[in-house]
């Protein structure tokens, strides 16, 4: 006799371990899911809201300096190590995981102007207002040993900036001229001048390692090749650039922070106009640093805020500020792409998350999946007004808020005036100049 019963293979519905997700058989026929869009929209809205609620970017503040923090340097090999130099010539080495200072040394008299860790991570260089370049060991001197530099080079003029070559024992300083130094020699192997009396910063290209760029006080950005005897090219802008940073993933792109509240991203092959003008700051931009992925950069401004810009977008995606943070002088993006460090006038170094709402620490696989999914949802619906409104909402201190409003009014007025002038003059006599072209005076070859 045959008895037929409903029988199912347990493999189809029993999970293998209790850590697995329960199997839920589903019919994916879209005809059965008429509300998928609205459901996903709701999910996206919730994700966006939660994103804002969980946005707590401030991680820690490192205090200990007795004067404003003037420069910082990332360690090349250790994520947890940060070096900072202050305006009283003191250099501090920090342990970021413990939020504590592990070493303090009096490096210079007067400001520490620039600081860089050698590519091997065993020593670092500092330049100061006392016209010296000093090389220090990264290790803390043992008990009884004196804190002494490995090497001291006396220069003729004040140095204002410093950068080290990516692979070779060569570094560059700037001051009255841009000098290229061999580590073994006490005089520069090459000096570049181009009718300028002072440079504010110099940076090596991390990919095309023989290239350099510097910001000069005659409102120009100058490009050099280390192997050449003369500078390559310079672009003169309407206002002075304070610092610049190369994109670590795209060899030809660099971004400069300008006194006119903007940042400019250039392609070094086409200097006649910047690729993008990044606006949002309401005061001079003092420092800029790229994320190691080359997708975004962070800028520090005199307006007491730190802003994060996507590299190809004109406006910031994030603004960080606290009540106590004063003019931000230097900023760095950590080498693991997770944190941002800002040093400011009021003697503190602040540690921020690069993604304000991101959960720190290890994510469980399902957690990660959920966050990925939420991220995609936000991306998908980011044109929708409500989601956009929540996602883009930021709180700003009153002063900055009003200042930005004022700036907007000014800009609008200028635009209106220009439009009127154009309207009342001979057609074609007042050409339309794009925002990008406005800020470049000339390119000198």
């Amino acid at each position, binding site marked *: *006799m045959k008895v*037929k019963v409903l029988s199912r293979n347990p493999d189809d519905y029993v999970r293998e371990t209790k850590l697995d997700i329960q199997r839920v058989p589903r019919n994916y026929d879209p005809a059965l899911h008429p509300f998928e869009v609205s459901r996903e929209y709701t999910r996206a809205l919730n994700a966006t809201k939660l994103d804002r609620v969980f946005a707590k970017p401030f991680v820690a503040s490192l205090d200990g300096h007795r004067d404003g923090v003037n420069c910082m340097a990332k360690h090349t090999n250790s994520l947890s190590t940060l070096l900072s130099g202050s305006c009283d010539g003191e250099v501090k080495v920090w342990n970021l995981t413990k939020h504590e200072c592990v070493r303090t040394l009096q490096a210079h008299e007067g400001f520490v102007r620039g600081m860089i860790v050698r590519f091997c991570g065993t020593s670092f260089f500092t330049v100061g207002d006392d016209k010296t370049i000093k090389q220090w060991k990264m290790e803390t001197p043992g008990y009884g040993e004196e804190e002494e530099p490995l090497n001291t080079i006396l220069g003729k003029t004040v140095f204002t900036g410093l950068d080290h070559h990516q692979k070779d024992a060569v570094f560059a300083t700037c001051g009255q001229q841009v000098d290229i130094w061999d580590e073994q020699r006490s005089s520069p192997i090459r000096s570049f001048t181009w009718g300028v009396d002072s440079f504010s910063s110099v940076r090596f290209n991390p990919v095309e390692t023989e290239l350099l760029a510097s910001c000069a006080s005659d409102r120009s950005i100058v490009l050099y090749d280390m192997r050449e005897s003369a500078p390559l090219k310079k672009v003169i802008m309407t206002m002075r650039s304070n610092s610049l940073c190369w994109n670590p993933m795209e060899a030809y792109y660099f971004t400069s922070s300008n006194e006119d509240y903007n940042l400019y991203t250039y392609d*070094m092959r086409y200097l006649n106009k910047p690729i993008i003008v990044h606006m949002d700051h309401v005061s001079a931009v003092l420092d800029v640093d790229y994320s190691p992925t080359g997708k975004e950069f962070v800028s520090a401004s005199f307006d007491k805020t730190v802003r994060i810009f996507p590299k190809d977008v004109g*406006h910031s995606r994030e603004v960080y500020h606290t009540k106590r943070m004063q003019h931000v002088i230097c900023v760095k993006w950590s080498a693991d792409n997770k944190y941002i460090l800002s040093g400011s006038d009021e003697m503190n170094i602040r540690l921020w998350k690069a993604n304000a709402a991101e959960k720190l620490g290890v994510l469980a696989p399902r957690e990660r999946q959920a966050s990925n999914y939420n991220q*995609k949802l936000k991306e998908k619906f980011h044109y929708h007004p409500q989601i956009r409104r929540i996602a883009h909402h930021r709180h700003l201190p009153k002063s900055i808020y009003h200042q930005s409003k004022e700036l907007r009014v000014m800009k609008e007025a200028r635009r209106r005036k220009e439009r009127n002038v154009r309207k009342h003059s001979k057609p074609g006599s007042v050409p339309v100049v794009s925002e990008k072209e406005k800020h470049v005076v000339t390119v000198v070859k």
Partner: protein
Amino acid sequence: MDVHTTAYRVANSHDFFLNEEEEDGEDERRRQKLLEAISALGGKRKKTLGERSEAAVQLSEFSVNAEGEGDKINLSDLIGSMDKTPQVSAKTRKQLKTLQQSNRTVESPLSKQETERIQRDVAFQKAASEQLVFPLNQEAPGPKPMERVVTGWKARTPLEEEIFALLSANKQPIHDPILTPQEEVSMKAMSLEEAKIRRAELQKARALQSYYEAKTRRERKIKSKKYHRVQNKAKRKDFVKQFEEMVKSDPAAALEELHKMELARMQERMSLKHQNSGKWAKSKAIMAKYDEGARKAMQQQLEVNKDLTQKLVTAVNDEEEEEEEEDEGGDPEVLPDFVNDAEQGVDSSNPWMRGKLSEDPAEKETSEIVDLTAEEESADVEEEEEEEVKETEEEALLREFDSRRKRRQALIPVISLDDDEEEESKTAAEEEEESKTAVEEKEESKEEEESKVAAVEEEEEEEEEEGLEETLMRIRTLEDTEELLMQEESAADEAPVPPPAAENPPPASQPAGTNKKRKRGIELKQVLTKATKVIQVPLAHTVEDAEDSDDNQEQRGLIREAFAGDDVVSDFLKEKRKQEAAGKPQVVDLTLPGWGEWGGTGLKLSRRKRKKFRMKAAPPPPRKDVSLPGVIISEKRNRSITLHQVNTLPFPFETHTQFESTIRTPLGRTWNTERTVKKISKPKVVTRMGAIIEPMAREELMKDRNQATVADRNSVNSGKRKR
């Protein structure tokens, strides 16, 4: 290094050259002058000086330089010497000759710079990868042998030494490759070829087995009785032969076999098959008086019965029985089949008690089809019965089913009617629901389009909106975000709502055509076919018990009483008519009473006046729900929805359909398979925790194109070279 810098270098060197050359040139000129002066002194003696110049200036990169500027080299010049040299082989000679005759010129190769640029282009064209994983050059995860991690490591501490001593004593591997001697031996034990052969053998065996299985299955499915009879006969013969041999060769196995047969016989005896108590046998008994064939059949059956129930069994018959049973697909069981069968007639209305428990569900499903042809089939069955003698039991069963079916058919109309009602009400409810959704969705889409059409000129503002919306308000909780939305809403209320695009309504056909998936209105045909289909399946429903139905009746009555005034369908229709009427344009009456005519109450307007002063507006475009009887589509703008809708076409999109399609594709695991979800929700940038991301190395740029790289095409294209 890029093009520019090289350009600079070249330019610089060029400058340098120029300077030098200028000086040289001046000297040259002086010398020339001097020479001229001298020659002028001498009179006729004029001699052209052979000039020597730097080769570098005009040197072609193909290193073929014509003597004079305008001179052209012919092929004949080059191969002219061929005739003089006897060493040249005839073959080459022939080839060169043909070459000389052909007029086609080979295109000159590209210049060095150009070829280099192309090569670089090819090398650097990196597909813009979807996902970037940082750091770029990661080591493969997983455990690594100690030797690879620590090179030049030596055991120092006593513990380490001890461990190493132990390892070496046990012949454990210390150095690469990490295999114990046993493992090595096992590696050697079977070579690759051997393994392959073995695998092939196994595959073959498996294939043969499956063929055999398929064959037997096929044979079992053959319905022809004759075929099986022949088959069985052959088998029986075979079996007898084998058994006799077995008795001679292996008496123990033979005894075993005998035992089996005995068991089978016992089962047969228990089942009381082949007795003439069955229906068929009875009918045959009646017929036996008149029919020779029937008598014969009965005789045969009795014989079989005798055979089977005899104490001493012939192995042959038993074997046959076994075969038969196996044909039926049943397992050898002690109890007969009908023990499990429900007693018929006890409770005919209980569906669970009707029919055998072993009844095929498939049969049930198909029974509606059987219904129609039941008569014919039963006739067929009867015919077959006469042929087949031994299958009586089955036949009896079949007939039983038949009668039951007939009885059930009598019940069907009642059930199906009930069903019909239920079905109808259900479909109505569904319809309503679906209509609602359809209405909403349609509205939505329409709204979207309207808003998009309305707000095109606000692009300048759009540009500003790109950035953050910085305010003085902080968001701390979820409620704050809600507040944010409320603000927005009020702002939107204040803002002048763009007029609904009445002057150019979006073409109705366009959305209907494009988003078929979204519009899920009911099509009348579909509903109807569904309903009829449902009626056709009467067996799936049960007949309630008498008291049950009584209960139901009561309940139904109650419900009817409770919803006495509710006629949902007619209400819906009324509502729809109302909506239609509201949508129709009003007639504007511009007549002035008493103007040009007598005034007063109760007077009729003249026809002329009515014609002239009553303005009829143009009829509106047909409503979208005209053809949908169960649906009301409101074409009014719904502000609460508008707030959530995109009112302009976002930048990268060019048409509404593009944008809508991106919105329409769901991402979640509710609507997609796990794999798809994983693929869709891959983040664009992946970083590893605690890993330092180094800047792009130039070697990285040169790597295989599949490798994730950052530099997009533009940045890399125009040239980068290794130096």
